[in-house]
């Protein structure tokens, strides 16, 4: 099969993703420097908040969406062994998303969308930001349609056969993204854009925050599923072993998609617009969704254990040392799991209804989400890129050793950056501040932590530059004769011959999600239409 069209499509998406990533890394380092107050020439709340907003949009929306789309197209065509359904439509999706990104960039960079990459009305951005973000999402919906069409076409042509795990996970993510993005889409279409255009004078912040909470947490699983996909479908093979269980992997993806959605109110624990009972319900759901992560941790580590023992490892933990630590994919998963443990612990604290009061809106929160997103998720994006880039450009990776140094420095930098962030949160430093202007003992005690964060950010920036350099050199290097590596998906050690339909299809899970969403969000949203609430005028740029 000539795969040049899908390789071009994937490369286009990944380059947009990684250009967004490197720009955002420079902004991140500027932000820790500015916030520390060590360099007074940098002091500017206006520039700081514009930078934070742009950094968040680039990392959270542009890097992720383009990476997930590009990786998804490649997975679809290589796992199903079929060309992309309607590749012209896929390119339309790409250009719509890119146009949306460019449109949103203008108000972001000119300080007219300094809304901290959130949709927490009544803080309001320029309408171009909302329309740009909408276009980005519309482009990604095209990707969802293509993934689900390919999934269903393959099932029709291969009745009773298990859908390849990589495609099952990608399709589950497409389904999840449709559901996830609906909340913020409703908010933007019916509240944010009309408010920004002056069609309405006030907006109900409670309803807006509830709709954003619908999106805010499951979006994390949209970002994380490609990382988990690599855990299951690449890591075991790269480690020299087998996937511990294909069925368990499918169950984990289903659980993530189903229970990742109806739990967003743990972001609203301190908000007044929802009653405690609803918050408690979502809090319980948040603990339930830790289950697929534990299952994933178990399955991936068990797969690594098989590989380590097949490589001669003995004893309870002797297999760890025999793993191929110099393989970027294997190293990445080990570092990703370490960060997932620490970040996961932070998440459990966030989700604890009472203790949330201690860290709510403190520096702990960005520390947590950097560890989970920029740590666990992004390091697996690196691993995927190192693995598929040579396959996309048909040339060997420029430098394996540079890749290993880059992965280690990313892990070390992220540890140095996020540990003080968590500590600062416990010491009471608020998040979303551009400077610390008070000179009392409490805030002076924060300074050493700020210094450590600057250093951690520098390490991360250096690591990010190495990553981009390695990819660019790989692509620009002359072709190597005889290079013909092919993608290799991990095999379960007990091959799957057939599967029950609930582990091989998504229809049933759509109904389950619909019921759970109706239970968890039905009354909390409808209440705004049946009780007296008070609108707020916009404020912002």
């Amino acid at each position, binding site marked *: 099969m000539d795969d040049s069209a899908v390789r071009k499509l994937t490369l286009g998406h990944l380059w947009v993703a990684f250009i967004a990533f490197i720009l955002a890394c420079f902004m991140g380092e500027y932000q820790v420097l500015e916030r520390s107050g060590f360099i007074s020439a940098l002091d500017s709340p206006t520039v700081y908040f514009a930078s934070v907003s742009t950094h968040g949009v680039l990392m959270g929306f542009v890097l992720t969406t383009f990476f997930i789309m590009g990786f998804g197209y490649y997975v679809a065509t290589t796992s199903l062994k079929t060309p992309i359904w309607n590749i012209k439509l896929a390119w339309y999706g790409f250009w719509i998303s890119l146009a949306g990104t460019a449109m949103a960039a203008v108000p972001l960079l000119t300080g007219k969308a300094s809304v901290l990459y959130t949709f927490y009305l009544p803080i309001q951005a320029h309408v171009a930001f909302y329309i740009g973000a909408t276009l980005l999402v519309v482009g990604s919906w095209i990707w969802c349609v293509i993934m689900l069409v390919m999934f269903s076409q393959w099932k029709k042509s291969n009745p009773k056969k298990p859908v390849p795990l990589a495609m099952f996970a990608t399709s589950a993510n497409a389904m999840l993204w449709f559901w996830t993005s609906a909340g913020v889409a409703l908010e933007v279409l019916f509240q944010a854009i009309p408010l920004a255009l002056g069609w309405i004078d006030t907006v109900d912040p409670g309803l807006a925050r509830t709709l954003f909470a619908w999106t805010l947490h499951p979006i994390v699983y949209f970002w994380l599923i490609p990382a988990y996909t690599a855990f299951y479908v690449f890591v075991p093979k790269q480690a020299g072993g087998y996937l511990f269980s294909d069925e368990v992997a499918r169950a984990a993806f289903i659980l993530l998609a189903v229970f990742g959605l109806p739990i967003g109110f743990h972001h609203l624990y301190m908000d007044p617009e929802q009653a405690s009972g609803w918050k408690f319900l979502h809090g319980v759901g948040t603990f339930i969704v830790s289950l697929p992560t*534990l299952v994933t941790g178990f399955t991936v*580590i068990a797969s690594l254990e098989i590989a380590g023992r097949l490589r*001669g490892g003995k004893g*309870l*933990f002797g297999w760890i040392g025999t793993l191929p630590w110099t393989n970027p994919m294997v190293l990445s998963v080990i570092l990703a799991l370490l960060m997932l443990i620490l970040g996961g612990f932070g998440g459990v604290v966030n989700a604890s209804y009472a*203790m949330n009061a201690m860290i709510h809106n403190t520096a702990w929160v960005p520390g947590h989400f950097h560890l989970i997103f920029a740590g666990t998720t992004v390091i697996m994006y690196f691993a995927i890129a190192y693995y598929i880039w040579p396959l996309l450009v048909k040339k060997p990776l420029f430098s394996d050793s540079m890749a290993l140094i880059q992965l280690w420095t990313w892990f070390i930098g992220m540890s140095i950056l996020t540990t003080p962030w968590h500590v600062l949160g416990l010491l009471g430093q608020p998040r979303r501040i551009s400077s610390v202007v008070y000179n009392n003992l409490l805030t002076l005690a924060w300074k050493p932590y700020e210094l450590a964060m600057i250093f951690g950010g520098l390490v991360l920036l250096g690591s990010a530059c190495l990553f981009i350099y390695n990819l660019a050199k790989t692509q620009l290097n002359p072709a190597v004769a005889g290079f013909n590596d092919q993608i290799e998906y991990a095999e379960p*050690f007990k091959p799957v011959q057939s599967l029950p339909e609930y582990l091989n299809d998504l229809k049933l899970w759509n109904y389950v999600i619909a019921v759970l969403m109706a239970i968890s969000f039905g009354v909390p949203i409808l209440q705004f239409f049946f009780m007296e609430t008070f609108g707020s005028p916009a404020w912002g740029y």
Partner: protein
Amino acid sequence: MNQIDEDERGRILESSPIGTFALMAIVIGSMVIAWLFLYFGVFIPRGIIN
């Protein structure tokens, strides 16, 4: 990479991942201890919110 014979290979593939169980127990146990420390050692001593 060490070479292993087919019997050994089969034994490894059929055996329980005891190292994984042990690691998961350590991780989950550590998280529970850390959570309890944070709850009783940091959160509760701070008292009620004023």
